[in-house]
């Protein structure tokens, strides 16, 4: 009888322990961090919790899920900082024993139960054989019940993700440091700039190999009696080509030359291609009127750059010293005001 009592006690304790372990469907861990920090699951807008003054927040997550990332929002911050969770291996031996033990108990119980049933049927009502059969049946049913109660939940739990892949969360996790939201280090141009800059990869050309504004090297003529600057000022639209050693490198079906008056005999010239300034800086030209009524525009320090504006408003722009990335090109534009 002592043996039976002992076995029953052990079975009960083991069953309760395994049942308890088997019914747990969550994983627990603590997140350490600055008090007041809110912790979020990704893609869930509601905070999972706030780290209390003790600096430690306990969380439970489903065993059948995996959270590799969580977010921390520090007090006073508007943004969340993603941080990673650490893991360790877990064999989950208890649940595995529970499955084996439970199903075996259930199997053994069923064997006892069916044996008892046969004995019960074989005996006559009230005789010892029938009583023994009844005891075996009842005992077998009880053991089957206990075994199933242990085995089925354990089996169910073994099907959960953390059990199938033998992992659990490290008990101590640490919220990310208070990562500052540093402004973008390489910010793209604003949209209106981007629209105007369809060829951002090309570097700006310089005129005559000079990178300083030409304006500082010009001298204004005071002898002009007519306002030639005003006469030639305007927008000239046309087409152009960029040549290197006689070979056309680029063609511009739409290009614009902007001529702005500086004074009576001086103008500022910009070339706009695809919405972008072709040259680094506006170029300063001197304006002289020819006998035929046309105007000749020249750059003081760059004799290879000339512009002719005819009476009918047509323009011929030639610049033979366009410096692009160290190579000297010729830019030829014809247009009309």
């Amino acid at each position: 009888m002592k043996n039976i009592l002992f076995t029953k006690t052990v079975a009960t304790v083991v069953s309760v322990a395994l049942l308890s372990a088997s019914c747990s469907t969550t994983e627990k861990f603590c997140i350490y961090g600055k008090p007041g920090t809110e912790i979020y699951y990704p893609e869930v807008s509601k905070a999972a919790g706030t780290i209390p003054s003790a600096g430690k927040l306990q969380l439970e997550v489903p065993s059948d899920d995996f959270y590799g990332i969580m977010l921390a929002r520090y007090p006073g911050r508007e943004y969340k900082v993603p941080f990673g969770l650490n893991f360790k291996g877990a064999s989950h031996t208890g649940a595995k024993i529970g499955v084996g033990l439970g199903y075996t108990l259930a199997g053994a119980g069923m064997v006892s139960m069916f044996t008892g049933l046969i004995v019960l049927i074989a005996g006559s009502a009230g005789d010892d054989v029938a009583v023994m059969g009844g005891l075996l049946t009842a005992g077998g049913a009880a053991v089957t019940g206990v075994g199933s109660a242990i085995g089925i939940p354990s089996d169910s739990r073994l099907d959960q993700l953390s059990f199938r892949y033998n992992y659990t969360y490290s008990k101590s996790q640490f919220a990310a440091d208070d990562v500052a939201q540093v402004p973008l280090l390489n910010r793209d141009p604003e949209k209106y700039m981007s629209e105007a800059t369809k060829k951002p990869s090309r570097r700006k050309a310089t005129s005559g190999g000079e990178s300083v504004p030409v304006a500082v090297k010009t001298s204004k003529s005071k002898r002009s009696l007519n306002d030639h600057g005003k006469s030639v000022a305007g927008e000239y639209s046309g087409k152009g080509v960029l040549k290197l050693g006689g070979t056309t490198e680029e063609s511009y079906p739409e290009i614009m030359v902007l001529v702005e008056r500086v004074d009576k005999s001086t103008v500022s010239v910009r070339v706009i291609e695809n919405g972008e300034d072709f040259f680094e800086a506006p170029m300063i030209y001197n304006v002289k009127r020819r006998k035929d009524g046309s105007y000749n525009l020249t750059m003081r320090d760059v004799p290879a750059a000339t512009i002719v504006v005819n009476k009918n408003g047509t323009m011929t722009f030639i610049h033979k010293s366009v410096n692009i990335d160290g190579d000297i090109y010729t830019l030829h534009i014809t247009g009309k005001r």
Partner: protein
Amino acid sequence: MSAIGEQVDVYRFYMKKNHLLLSGIVSAALLSSCGTAGHLSINSVGYQSVRTDFAFPEKIPVDAKIATVYSFDKNGELTVIVKNLTQDIMTIDNKKSFLIMPDGNSISYFDPVVTANTKSSFSSETNSSSFNLGALSSALGIVGPLGSLMGGLTIGSSHTEGQSNSSTVILADQPTVSIGPNGAGVMPKHYSVPGVGVGAMKKPDISASAAKPSESRCRFSVCVSYSFDNGKSYDKLITNFYVNTTMTVKVDRSTVDDGFKRIYAAKADALSEPCYMFHVATNLPKGTDTYRYGILVDYK
């Protein structure tokens, strides 16, 4: 009494058998628990940011006629939302709307061969007349942090606490479709962009950052053709994208947090990017291993 004694003996016999069985099972279970099949493996932590070739607009101009919102899921699948900012009917020509892939190939948004992949619906309130980015987010059912939009298609789920609306339009998979005044719709197909998403974060590399679009390893574009005169003439909104940063840090399952710290150390402005994702690469068939934040916006 002798009969009861015999019964007890029989019962003891069975209990002894059970003892033996019990011992056998426990041993077997203990042995089986030592097996190594199916262990969690974590290989790396990845980070990727995608940009348009212009700065994220703080505000959409009041005279803009069309706005587009772009989001990527973890596999680089691009969702395009088109917003009609006018009081006129907008016609979208799906035949003339394309995704231009990084390799230069383009895919039409109306291709009968490609099966429409409209996973879910989400919503838009279409009555905003004055417009800024906040209004756009609101109008498209994007509430709370912009990160909620990521994947856009999850908006209708409980993950966002049911804060989305219910009048969503997913544009029909037809050659041309229309969007009503101040309405919005989702382009009918969601194509994956090679080079975007977790597939691009497999190779450990901490220095894969592009300062300019021209330096990017992955550039692509979306062209939306739209009309306000019932299809007589079409205009185009072309948005150019580039992958600004792709970083992958090798970790194991006990140093996942360290992977994030190394990414923050290598890219101080990681959290300022308008559209980015973090990914923890595991061998698990499911789980929350990716965090996606932000959207990209264009207008004309």
